[in-house]
């Protein structure tokens, strides 16, 4: 019986591996009358120039206050979705289905010199995508409605040294953004890994305030104060803190030029009892018996010609009070390595390979060790102004260890488009 459960878990993972949201914002390309490759190696991955624009509050570096603002351009709204065929095979079960990969509505722009905003809304989709995830009881929409990002950025508060982001945002410790990954089906497993009694998900956007800075010598930092349970109100009235540091060697930002090293540390609090006993204006604030957890790790991004190799490692530890499975702290580790190649004319073809691994403690039967090997090919039909269409073929082989080892294959053939 447990084997069947495993198969279902793997199938669910293969079929519904959280499709990555957000990505490119063609409204920027529309605003400036340029093509996507101005800021993207190939959408959705930012190139070095695009990374600097993002770091600068969606303003061209050095051109602050001399761009059209949001009121002087066509509505700064973009949309993205992908559709096609998903197929998977695990054990004796094979499934296939035409599918929609959700819908993102994005709005972003510059309100005033050094003041910009980003909104990403994913509308709830009940049809035709109902029951794509979870049990087939009609209770699981293909995409839950969510305000994935809603933040305002105050750039260059102290030259490049201090930029402040407030609201719900993708935290700076995401060395490699899952939102701007080429992979549409296979995410970064370690980003999504959750521990038994901790609501913190590394991959979640966070609600709070963040300070970032970037310097001419290639050094960057990010530091934040956030609720710590993703996009939700606080549950324990104790804020989480994080800091991340990057150093780029050579010209570029380590996206497709320069070599980049990074490190991060996140320290958070979780209640051990009475979660949600009282809901006040500030959230569920009377979670009691708060105890700590932390995540630390490092990353590297290396570039050679049109190859980009990146690797990420994370070590996580939850206090033993957050570990119902054992009397010790809950310790896990994992990471990924990925190589991208962008070639042919104007980066029209992208080929990528990725290896994900997660190693939870051996006593956690519900979270067996996992190895996922993936590959993709993306072909862009053109490099057009503020619109892009990519043909996307992605394959993953998922190998689950533990007491009931299992493996599975997943294939996705999609058309990814945004405008």
């Amino acid at each position, binding site marked *: 019986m447990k084997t069947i459960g495993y198969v279902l878990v793997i199938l669910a993972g293969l079929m519904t591996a959280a499709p990555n949201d957000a990505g490119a914002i063609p409204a920027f390309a529309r605003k400036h009358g340029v093509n996507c490759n101005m800021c993207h190696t190939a959408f959705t991955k930012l190139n070095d120039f695009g990374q600097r624009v993002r770091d600068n509050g969606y303003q061209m570096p050095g051109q602050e206050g001399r761009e059209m603002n949001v009121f002087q351009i066509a509505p700064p709204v973009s949309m993205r979705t992908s559709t096609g065929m998903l197929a998977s095979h695990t054990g004796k079960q094979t499934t296939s289905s035409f599918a929609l990969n959700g819908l993102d509505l994005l709005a972003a722009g510059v309100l005033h010199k050094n003041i910009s905003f980003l909104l990403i809304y994913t509308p709830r989709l009940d049809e035709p995508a109902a029951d794509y995830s979870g049990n087939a009881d009609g209770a699981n929409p293909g995409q839950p409605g969510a305000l994935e990002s809603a933040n305002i950025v105050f750039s260059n508060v102290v030259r490049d040294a201090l930029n402040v982001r407030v609201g719900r945002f993708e935290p700076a410790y995401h060395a490699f953004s899952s939102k701007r990954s080429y992979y549409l089906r296979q995410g970064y497993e370690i980003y999504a890994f959750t521990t038994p009694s901790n609501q913190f998900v590394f991959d979640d956007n966070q609600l709070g305030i963040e300070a970032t800075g970037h310097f001419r010598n290639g050094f960057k930092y990010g530091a934040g104060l956030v609720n710590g349970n993703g996009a939700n109100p606080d549950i324990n009235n104790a804020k989480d803190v994080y800091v991340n540091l990057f150093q780029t060697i050579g010209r570029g930002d380590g996206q497709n030029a320069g070599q980049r090293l990074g490190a991060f540390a996140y320290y958070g609090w979780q209640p051990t009892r009475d979660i949600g006993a009282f809901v006040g204006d500030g959230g569920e604030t009377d979670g009691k018996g708060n105890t700590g957890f932390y995540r630390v790790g490092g990353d590297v991004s290396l570039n050679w010609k*049109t190859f980009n190799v990146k690797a990420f490692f994370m070590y996580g530890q939850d206090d033993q009070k957050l570990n119902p499975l054992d009397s010790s702290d809950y310790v896990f580790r994992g990471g990924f390595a990925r190589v991208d190649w962008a070639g042919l004319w104007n980066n029209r073809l992208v080929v990528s390979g990725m290896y994900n691994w997660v190693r939870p403690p051996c006593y956690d039967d519900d979270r067996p060790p996992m190895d996922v090997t993936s590959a993709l090919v993306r072909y862009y039909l053109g490099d057009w102004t503020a619109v892009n269409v990519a043909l996307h073929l992605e394959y993953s082989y998922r190998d689950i260890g533990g007491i009931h080892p299992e493996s599975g294959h997943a294939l996705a053939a999609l058309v990814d488009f945004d405008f």
Partner: protein
Amino acid sequence: MLMVMVWIAPTIAFPGDAPVTPITTSPVQSLGPQRIGNLPPVPVPPDNPQTSAKILLGKKLYFDTRLSKDNTISCATCHDPALGWSDAGPTSAGINNQLGGRRSPPVSNSAYNLLQFWDGRSPSLEEQAKGPIENPIEMGNTHTAMIQSVNGVPGYQEEFKRVFGSSPITVDQVAQAIAAFERTVVTTDSPFDRFVRGDQAALTPLEAKGLEVFNGKGHCAACHWGGLLSDGRFHNLGVAPIDPAKPDHGRYEVTKNPGDMGAFKTPTVRDADLRAPYLHNGSEKRLEDVVRLYDRGGGSDDANLDPMMVPLGLSNGEIEALVAFMKRAMTSVNPEVINVKPIPKSELPE
């Protein structure tokens, strides 16, 4: 700040583009980048309206070496119509063969510049026209001496009185006449312009690919935008001085702002093929060399490198296409501009 109202270029019909409603007017210097496209009508200052008589007078002055101290240098010496309204470079030779430190910027389309000279020290064509006359290594003259010379030519006295209705001739009138002529040197008929106007066959397939790179992976359009294909702003590309003992601080010399150290005005890409060598000091011989400089993320003198400079990762094919686009596709064939011949001394006012 000079605020010029311009019309934004119409939508370029790239395959698959959704129509975008153009914004009709906007103050240029505060709004960019803008889509590359056709040049708008020439901006003309209200205090110096264009007249055919003034333009002809300005043309004569432009080719007249009597504006210089020793009657050897005219505007056209360094801004030669046959050399893309620039000169052979790498930097310009003025009076007594003295070499300047900078490349001669083109007169063609200079009417659209918000600021004149590589360092933007002049706010108008009229002010710019006065500068080289007094520059000791260009025309080597003084305004007083130059005006005495021009006033000493009866033919000029007559023409200036007809154009401006007053006498004697003033420095401002000389400058206004030259500027009026320069405002007619506008290149609007390149294959790129025809492509933008809807002629899909105007670009070769390679040039069309080059346009794609120009507007995207090459990052060119981040600074070379709008109808002029220039943002009119100042950027440090990391270009090392020819003589390390004589560094050129560029825009910093005007503003004294450390952020402007080594920054120079973005030149237009229009007719660039006619104007080798390139950059403010003529240090890059070919357009391909310029592209490769950008591809490396800038030059070696990078203490104040513009933050928009990043390595581009261009392939040889992409560089070839980009250069092809900037050569034939950006070269205009306006007969009224490319057929301009120097006015012989015998036809200048006596």
